[in-house]
């Protein structure tokens, strides 16, 4: 995994990636009509949980999709959701 990530990072495609620990080590903070609720993990009610992410810098959605199988083979059975981000990072403005 490390070698693959390094290769992809050096090519400029991979901007950032990391994995997430189990939800039992996390919490949910919810704002609803101005009222904050804090719930400790584990998120038992969640149908699916995110275990990791990667930010890719590519030329097209097709290219992003083309990287998914490699990630999945490393991560194991499951699915990956690919979402386009704003071209300009929010922290630039």
């Amino acid at each position, binding site marked *: 995994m490390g070698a693959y990530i390094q290769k992809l990072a050096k090519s400029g495609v991979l901007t950032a990636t990391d994995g997430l620990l189990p939800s039992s080590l996390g919490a949910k903070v919810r704002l609803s009509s101005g009222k904050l609720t804090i719930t400790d993990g584990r998120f038992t009610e969640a149908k699916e*949980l995110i*275990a*990791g*992410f990667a930010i890719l810098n*590519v*030329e097209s*959605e097709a290219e992003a999709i083309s990287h998914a199988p490699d990630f999945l083979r490393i991560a194991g059975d*499951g699915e*990956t959701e*690919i979402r386009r981000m704003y071209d300009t990072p929010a922290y630039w403005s």
Partner: protein
Amino acid sequence: MRFMMLMIPDVYQKPGPAPALPDPRAIAEMGVFNEGYAATSGSAWMRSELCDEALRLGRVLAELASAEPEVHGLVALMELQSSRFRARVRADGQPVLLLEQNRALWDPLLIRRGLAAIDRASGLGGDRGNYTLQASIAACHDRAPSADEPDWEEISALYAQLGRIAPSPVVELNRAVAVSMAFGAQAGLDILDLVADDPVLRKNHYLPSVRGDLLFKLGSLEAARAEFERAARMTRNERERELLLARAQTCVSPDEWLPDSPR
């Protein structure tokens, strides 16, 4: 172009632990239903929206756990109790006890659904459980040709069965009422004597209410009046208190107490 890839592994997508046996949820649901059926405090004799919601959840549960006889028993019990809603309160908010209810106001659709749910529970075999027994007791009143003709001997026997699988002073109290109808007020009082010191029963008004009723039937009017007044002091439901005080008053002039006449 920037994309974020979110990894969602299958191990995190498993639907959680297999559904537990329905008992805990069923019990919680029953709590909602009971609170709705005989609101413990406040002026509303019952909160029908709570009951409707419990019944809806129960029907859903019965589909999800259709092989579990007690789920059908629970749904049957709720259907049958819900069928009495319109008969259970007078227009002025006064509660009407089961035997004094106008049966024409019972909801025949809910009764049919309740009886069918009992059949489903029985069809799954095995001994009848707590809810199925309670529903069977309720059903005795639906199957009776008229309000004063349910099979009290059968109801007594069902309460005895219920007392064996789920011993409780409340069940004994109900059994005492059934036995008094089947075998006379004294037989009922004998059962009440066995639970007279029970700490749970001493906390609410049901025991003195029933004792008052049975003593009244035996003609012990002074003792009956004391029990009704004690019960009236103990209930937190205003409507019930009015009813009990009215009954205490009838012990002074018993001719005015005609349970079948409209008041």
